Each structure stands twice: as structure tokens, then as C-alpha cells.
């Protein structure tokens, strides 16, 4: 999806990978990178977007706070290991006792870390149940902005693809590595959590670093041209990380971020029948280079005032205009979405679209107004159907010896 303004800065972010500057089609060179799981912020946010995704949401099935904490400790340990390219458990897939199931499932034997990042989040339902009762003694720490997202026009949500008490985003350059991570974490969680839904994504639709070229979504357009990028530290601070003063009740979330997911189905076959000129008008960019219809190159600033033969040259309902920060008090998102194809529907159409992921400092200012504007007046909505939706709070990174989200439960 088109989007927010480019203001490419410099300065490396928190990611570990040694990478050259921008070049086209350089993904294979990164396949053996390893990103540190621990740090000030969780990895998998400003980390250069990997090519593959497996995202899972979980429901907590225990009422025990101690069990929940024990799971977060076990998950932290396993995530720390797997992101270094090690097996999920200390025994490993083939070295343990032959009369025990191995503590790693083994499909990642011989594969490098592949840029794996594992990012955890907490949903509103972790804090309070449907009746508003405190589930784990943390209700008084629920961030004000962490609520079930409101219904947006044209939402056709499937509850089995929406919401969740916990989430895990696993991204890697090898799909087997991402699936291995979710599979092993789910296994560790049996008895404490159950998978509510999960989603595979096979092609990043955003860039989170200026070192990456802009990929295309399933509409065939470049996506994420104007994303917040790791090399813009001031923009990342302003738009992505929750500040220490943002929410008095939720100091634990400082240095974290809000994670929005939206499963956006595309009416692929209908879209493909639209004339090229119409497609470009819906998006507000050219299909070939991604330049705004007001001219220039991919990264040129769009000129929303430039007149055309009938109204502005960038149409009033073009996606790039409707969601642009100029019309939303400058609010920008760090988007990290993935294309998905889950086979075909019963009528033979592709069950496909964009699994939208965004990290924002405050969904009330950085997501909900923009989504409302899009749902109300974006020309693209004709070709979209939102089937899944969720909001999570992604805590800050875990330091050595800590578990992810520790500040929520202690101190």
C-alpha cells in the first residue's frame, strides 16, 4: 500500500547486520546474518525487513500468573538460542536421549540463522477478560491505547483470524527457519497457551532500511516507499517507540511499540481487469517506477496540489493521498507487512493479499485515524476486504538475564 513520506536520514539503527549501502536485489547476501535477540528494543521492528514471515497469535489457557511468567522465560531462552542459529533447546534435534522426543524439531538442521528475528507482543485480552476482570494481576498496567481496535467500514473480520492474548512475529530470509521458530515456541507453550491463528507471509512488502530496494505487493505496485526507516533515528523515536512519559500506567512499555496486524484480502482477479491508468490512479503512483503521479522518481515527494485535466493530478481518492502524513498531523508508521497466498477459495480465486503489520508509537494517533480515512475514501477499498485484525503491545527488548516483558510483571 502506498503511504507515508520519505525522509531518508542516515545513521545505522540497532540492527547488527553489516550491510553495504542500497543496491537492488541483494537479498541472498544476507542469508547467514544473525540479529541479536537482546537489546534496548526488540529485534524485528527496525531490523531490515526479512523476506519471509510466520506470525502466530496465542490464547493463554492457564489462569496462573506464575505459569505465564515461566512461559515468557522459556520463550525468551528459546528465542535467544534460535536467533543465533542454535536449536530451540539444549539437547538439540538429534543429540538427546533416544527414548525422549528431541527438544528441537529438527527441520532447521544445517540452516544458518537466516536473519531470524522473534518479536513478542501482548494483546488487550491478556490484561482483562471479556467481563473486564483482571486475569494476571496486570490490569492496572494495561496501556490506555491497548484496546480492541474499533470496527472499521468494510471490515469482514473472522474471529478465528483476529485478536489474541499474545503474539509472536518470526521473520527470516528462509521460510523454513521462520516456521521452525513458531513451531518450537508453540510446542514449548502447550499447556500454557494454544495457537489461536497463524499466518505465513512470503514476500516483504515494506522496506525498513534504506539499504533495501522497494518490493512490490500483489497488486504489482511498489510498496513501502515512504516507510519509517532504521536510518532515521529521530523519526523512529518520534513515531515508533513508546516514550517514557506517554502513559503513566504503562511505564513498562517505554522503548516498546504498538503492533497492528490486519489481514487484508485482495480481490486479485477483479483488480487484474482494471486498466493500467485506473490502477495508477487508485494508488497515486506509477506502476513501473513507483513515482508519484505528480512526477519525479520513486522517492520524490508527491505534490497533492498539482492540477490535472480533471482535478488534481493525484486523484482525491488515491491511496497515497488518503493515508499521507500531510493529512494526518504528520503521523507515520513503520510498516512491515508481507504478501500472502493461502491457496485458492472455493470459487477458484486466489485467497491472497497483504498481511499488514505496522509498529507505531500510539495507535490512537498513528493508526486508527488513518485506517478510518482509508476505509471511508480510499479508491483501493473497492478491491480489499479485511478478514483479520489485532492490536498488541510489543514490550521493549530484554537485556541479558531478563525475560521479554519482565517490566510488566515485576518492579
Amino acid at each position, binding site marked *: 500500500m502506498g503511504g507515508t513520506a520519505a525522509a531518508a536520514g542516515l545513521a545505522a539503527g540497532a540492527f547488527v547486520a553489516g550491510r553495504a549501502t542500497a543496491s537492488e536485489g541483494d537479498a541472498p547476501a544476507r542469508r547467514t546474518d544473525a540479529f541479536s535477540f537482546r537489546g534496548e528494543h526488540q529485534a524485528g521492528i527496525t531490523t531490515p525487513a526479512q523476506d519471509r514471515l510466520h506470525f502466530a497469535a496465542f490464547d493463554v*489457557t492457564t489462569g496462573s500468573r506464575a505459569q505465564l511468567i515461566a512461559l515468557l522465560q522459556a520463550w525468551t531462552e528459546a528465542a535467544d538460542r534460535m536467533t543465533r542459529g542454535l536449536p530451540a533447546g539444549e539437547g538439540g534435534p*538429534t*543429540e*538427546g*536421549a*533416544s*527414548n*525422549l*522426543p528431541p527438544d528441537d524439531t529438527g527441520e532447521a538442521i544445517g540452516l544458518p540463522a537466516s536473519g531470524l528475528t522473534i518479536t513478542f507482543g501482548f494483546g488487550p485480552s491478556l490484561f482483562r477478560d471479556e467481563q473486564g476482570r483482571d486475569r494476571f494481576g496486570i490490569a492496572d498496567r494495561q496501556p490506555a491505547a491497548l484496546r480492541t481496535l474499533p470496527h472499521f467500514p468494510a471490515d469482514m473480520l473472522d474471529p478465528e483470524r483476529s485478536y489474541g492474548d499474545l503474539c509472536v512475529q518470526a521473520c527470516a530470509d528462509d521460510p523454513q527457519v521462520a516456521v521452525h521458530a513458531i513451531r518450537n515456541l508453540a*510446542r514449548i507453550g*502447550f*499447556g*500454557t497457551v*494454544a495457537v489461536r491463528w497463524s499466518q505465513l507471509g512470503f514476500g516483504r512488502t515494506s522496506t525498513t532500511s534504506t539499504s533495501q530496494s522497494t518490493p512490490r505487493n500483489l497488486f504489482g505496485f511498489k510498496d513501502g516507499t515512504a516507510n519509517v526507516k532504521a536510518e532515521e533515528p529521530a523519526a523512529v523515536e518520534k513515531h515508533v517507540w513508546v516514550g517514557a512519559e506517554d502513559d503513566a500506567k504503562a511505564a513498562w512499555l517505554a522503548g516498546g511499540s504498538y503492533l497492528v496486524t490486519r489481514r487484508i484480502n485482495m480481490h486479485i482477479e477483479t483488480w487484474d481487469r482494471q486498466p493500467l491508468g485506473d490502477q495508477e490512479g487508485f494508488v497515486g503512483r506509477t506502476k513501473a517506477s513507483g513515482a508519484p503521479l505528480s512526477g519525479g522518481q520513486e522517492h520524490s515527494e508527491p505534490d497533492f496540489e498539482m492540477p490535472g485535466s480533471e482535478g488534481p493530478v493525484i486523484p482525491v481518492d488515491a491511496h497515497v493521498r488518503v493515508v499521507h502524513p500531510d493529512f494526518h498531523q504528520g503521523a507515520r508508521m513503520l510498516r512491515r507487512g508481507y504478501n500472502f497466498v493461502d491457496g485458492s477459495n472455493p470459487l477458484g480465486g486466489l485467497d491472497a493479499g497483504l498481511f499488514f503489520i505496522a509498529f507505531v508509537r500510539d495507535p490512537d494517533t498513528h493508526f486508527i485515524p488513518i485506517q478510518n480515512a482509508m476505509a471511508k475514501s480510499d479508491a483501493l477499498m473497492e478491491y480489499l476486504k479485511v478478514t483479520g485484525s489485532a492490536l498488541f503491545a510489543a514490550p521493549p527488548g530484554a537485556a541479558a538475564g531478563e525475560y521479554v516483558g519482565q517490566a510488566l510483571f515485576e518492579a
Partner: protein
Amino acid sequence: MRKTVAAALLVAAPLLAACTENTRADGEDTGDTRAVSVTSTDDGCELSAVEAPAGTLTFDVKNDGSQVTEFYLLGEDGLRIVGEVENIGPQLSRELVVNAPAGSYVTACKPGMKGDGIRADFTVSESDDAPSASADDQGVVDQALANYQAYVQDQSDQLVAKTEEFVQLYKDGDDDAARALYPEARVHWERIETVAESFGDLDPMMDAREADLEEGQEWTGWHRIEKDLWPPATGYQALTPAERAEYADDLMANTETLDGRVQELTYTVDQIANGSRGLLEEVATGKVTGEEEIWSHTDLWDFQANVDGARVAYEGVQPIVEAKDPELAATLTERFAALQALLDEQKTDTGFVFYDDLSQDEIQALSNAVNALSEPLSRLTAAVLS
């Protein structure tokens, strides 16, 4: 999983039962007099030592032959199995770790897995580290084995009695009564399902579902009769009284054959532990999905019976697990209880809610509880043998 091996060998002294491991954490340890290298070839069985001090012995068995081999540590009589490691393919190595007190033993490599094997004497000498097989522990194990054997025999007896009653009702055309008894009789089958299934000839004749059949295979047994008692609305030809009698008598005869064989069975603790895990796997793959009883929808009776059998098996070895891994024992006890609480919610005056009346949320909750129990249960056998 593999079916429980019911054609039991001699009951090995379970405290001495071996566990096998692929590698040792400490790697090469040539100075350890309790570490013995074994090289099995097509016509030889070479040991690096013929004597070791009492304690935990590690036999590192390498197959340098061209056939699959086995290695045994046998008692002085050459019959009692103290420890064994099976299925070692050519050029592969496996370890046998076994706790052995002082005494005379016999070692055997069995290339080709046939015959008596290539045997030699082996001596375990007195040592301060000798294992203490306390009388109490041995008593616990003996009790567990005896109890489980009695449980299986009792369930088999009840299965015979109720099947007899059921097939008579069915032959007499008293369909309402037959339908009411169907799930209650099958409870006794499902409680010992892993044992019953270990008889590979009887299981398909007694418990095959229509979807299990090969092209051209004749369909007999419980589910054949199930379909006749709960027939599909269209396109089904009801069985004639003569056909009914044929299927009913066949089921009864097979049930009696099963009962006869069950009386002969003995068990080892690891077989009991494996049986517990296997019964939960039956739940996960057949019952919680509603695939077992697609016509009668009485899956929850089977579900409960599988859980009963798994719990009885677990409770038999529970004192052993509590001594060796108290945390695992606590988790298993708690999760059996959690699963039972969910099943209790579905109980009715006549048994259980029918599977097709369950909501998706209820099925999901049951499935979550089965997963929660199955994961720690997969470590039960190793804990019992540790």
C-alpha cells in the same frame, strides 16, 4: 507412535531396564572403565573390555557389518534381558546405558537380528558405586506391572460380556437398546486400545472405519454395525437379518480371540508408559476430531475411555515418576485433572453429549487440554526408565 509391543518378551527386571542414548555429553572417555566399546560385524562381536566395575555402564555399539544388528546384555542364564539396543543400521553407532550390579553376565551381538547372536561372558565386579536396587523400588515396579496386567484382563472380560449382550440385541433387531449399549461396550475396547491394536490381524477386522479400508477390503467389526444402526439418510442399503448375524458373530468371535490372547500378556514398565502416551495420541488424532464415530457421534465415550486407560497406566508408574522426576509427575497429575474437568462438563444422564452437538469452542478447549497433557506425557517413558 509405534504400537505397544504386546507380544512381550520376558519381563525384564525393570529397575535394571536400559535406556539408550545416541551420544554421551562427555564424548570420548577412554579412561572410564565403565565405558565399553563394542564392534559388531557380520560374524564378530568385539568388546574393548570383558569386565567392568558395578555402576552405570555405557556400551558404545558400532555396527561395522552389512546387516542391521542388535546388542544385548543378558543375565548369567543367558535369558533375562538386562539391557538391549536394537535396530543399529550398518555404519551407525548407538549407546546402551545400563545400571548393572556385580555379577556374571552374557553379551550378545545379533547381526541380522536373528538367532542367539554372537555371545561372550561379561563380568561386573564389586564397586562402591554399585546401584542400590532397593526392595521398595522393586516392589513398586512389581505392583505396577501386576496391577496393569489385571486391569487389561478385567477390561477385556467386560468387553466380552458387553459385546455378547450387544450383538444379541443387534441380531434380535432391538435397535434402540443396541444403540444405547454400543458406546458403553466400546468403552472397554477403547480403555485398552493400544494393547488391542498391537494385534495387527484383529484390529482391522474389529475396529476399521470405512475410510480406513483398502480398495476391495471387506469391512467388518464395530463400525460396520455402527453404520447399520445409524444409517445415512439416503443411498444406504440396510443389512438383512442374515447379514446382521454374520457381522455380529464375526465380531463376537474376534473379541473372544482377543480376550484369549490378552490373558497371556505381560508388560514392562516402559510398555505401560508408552501405552499411556499412545492412548492420548488416539484421542488427538481420532476422537477430538470426531472421526472415530462418524455415524453414532459417540466420540466422547471413546475419548473418556482412552483417557481412563491412559490415566490408569500413568497412575501405575506414578510412584516411580514421583521419585525420579517429581515436577513431571505434578504436571501430569494436574493436566489429567484439567482434561477430566472438561470431559465432566459434557456428561449427561445417559453418558455424554454427542460430538455433533459440541460447539467449536468446546472442541477447541478439549483439543487444547489434550495437547497440554500430551506434551509432558511424551517424556513419561524416559522418566520411568531413567
